[in-house]
């Protein structure tokens, strides 16, 4: 299998049970010595350098923004889930502050938050401009059908026997969540500015419902990132190594030039 001279490297062994083939209605023509070349693996670009750059810059910066935001939130932590006087969950319980060590560091939290916000904002704005200029927004923006299809994707991913709808670079659920996360980033920037300068930007603070509402919105957007992160990590683990590797290298090994093949490619190794 490791011999680079063998063009068939990566093919299933000859004695593989044909019933186990990934695609029963294989678009490949019937086996013939010539046609087996159609199964040769090739490199395919999955993610542009710019996409990977913005993604991997944003990850540590957003993490640090959430961390420093926690240092700030600790100083006044009124939010909870509950009805009336019954609190189901208080953001956050003492054990959380004590185990994470985000207590009693408001000054440091503010300084970090207002320093790193520059990188968060500039990276995010550059990404949005890049997406528009390159036309990649077309692969990313939800379409009218995305909202129905996203339900099918979710059911499929939860293990129900629902066929995956055909997709481009991103499936319907990805289109919605990846666009939502960019919109949320913009909202975090706007609500953050409204809290940061509520006197000089009084019109903005007022448009968001006032100072306290802006802080509330800013907090829940952050909880949204945490929820996104958990689902995202779960999906990355499910999708496997080759998918993760493609977000680092930009490339993946795919079978044969069959560009219209709708199913996910079989990996060579």
């Amino acid at each position, binding site marked *: 299998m490791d011999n*680079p001279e063998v063009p068939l*490297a*990566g093919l299933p062994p000859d004695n593989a049970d044909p019933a186990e083939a990934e695609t029963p209605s294989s678009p490949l023509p019937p086996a013939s010595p010539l046609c087996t070349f159609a199964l*040769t*693996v*090739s*490199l395919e670009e999955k993610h542009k350098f710019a996409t990977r750059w913005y993604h*991997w810059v944003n990850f*540590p910066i957003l993490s*640090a923004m959430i961390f420093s935001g926690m240092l*700030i*939130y600790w*100083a*006044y932590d*009124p939010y909870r889930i509950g009805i009336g006087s019954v609190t189901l969950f208080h953001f956050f319980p003492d054990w959380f502050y004590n185990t994470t060590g985000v207590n*009693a*560091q*408001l*000054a*440091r939290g*503010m*300084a*970090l938050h*207002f*320093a790193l916000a*520059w990188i968060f904002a500039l990276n995010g704005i550059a990404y949005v401009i890049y997406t528009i200029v390159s036309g990649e927004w077309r692969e990313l923006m939800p379409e009218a059908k995305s909202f129905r299809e996203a339900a099918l994707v979710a059911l499929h991913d939860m293990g129900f026997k629902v066929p995956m709808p055909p997709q481009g670079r991103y499936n319907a659920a990805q289109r919605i969540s990846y666009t939502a996360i960019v919109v949320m980033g913009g909202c975090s920037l706007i609500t953050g500015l409204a809290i940061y*300068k*509520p*006197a*000089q*930007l*009084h019109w903005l603070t*007022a448009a968001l419902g006032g*100072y*306290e509402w802006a*802080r509330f919105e800013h907090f829940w957007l952050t909880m949204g990132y945490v929820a996104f992160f958990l689902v995202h990590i779960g999906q990355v683990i499910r999708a496997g190594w080759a998918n993760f*590797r493609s977000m*680092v*290298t*930009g*490339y*993946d*090994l795919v079978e044969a030039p069959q560009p219209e093949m709708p199913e996910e490619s079989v990996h*060579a*190794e």
Partner: protein
Amino acid sequence: MPNKLTPEQEMSRRTRRGFLALGAGAAVAAGGWQWLNAGYQRGHDIPGPLRAILGFNERVVRGTLFSDQHLVKTYPASAIAKLKDNGDFGLDDDFDPDTWSLHVMPRGGGLPVTLSMDDLHALPRYEQTIDFKCVEGWSVVTQFAGARFSDFTAKFAPGSEKAGYVGMATPDGQYYVGLDTPSAMHPQTLLAYQMNGEHLADEHGAPLRLVIPVKYGIKNIKRIGRIAFGETQPPDYWQQRGYDFYAGL
């Protein structure tokens, strides 16, 4: 085809390069984090790089956003809530209001002036109900009445409005703030002697406190004993403990 890598070899090469680059990026990020936080200790001043960035932010905000035409929102009296007493630095228990006086040091070594409450009551009285914002994140709608700091300066330290900074301290010097003069001259900056329709209580800074709604509460010094105008940044109690000097809203 000699020298041509197979797709698998090309993928291995790109994987190696990609993860090396990611690792290098992670090292840069970790190094940057170390640099930003080097020497940090809880309760002490923040590290130099963070302080420098706060200074940069101040210049950006003063250069682009700040205007004394930008007024903070005012509220009807019905919106007033109870302001909690959140700091007693510089408020001695044995303070005697009868011996209080205000010492003012004008810009450029002018003669110091000593004032009484009567001098302040002689200035036009303004009343405003504003959302008082604590650096901790909470805010309370509170009504204050007093003299505009700009009127005060024009009358008792004329010319000092052109100073770069103004510093204020409690009579015992235990609490002190530094302010940029443009913020101090904002029309909503008051030397207040009344709160919510009553004379200032001791715990809220009797007999005279600063109300500067374009700053966080930490700059709203209680029981002012001394005011000095100058060109160098005055010492600031909470700046020395890691907070932003500007602390502007």
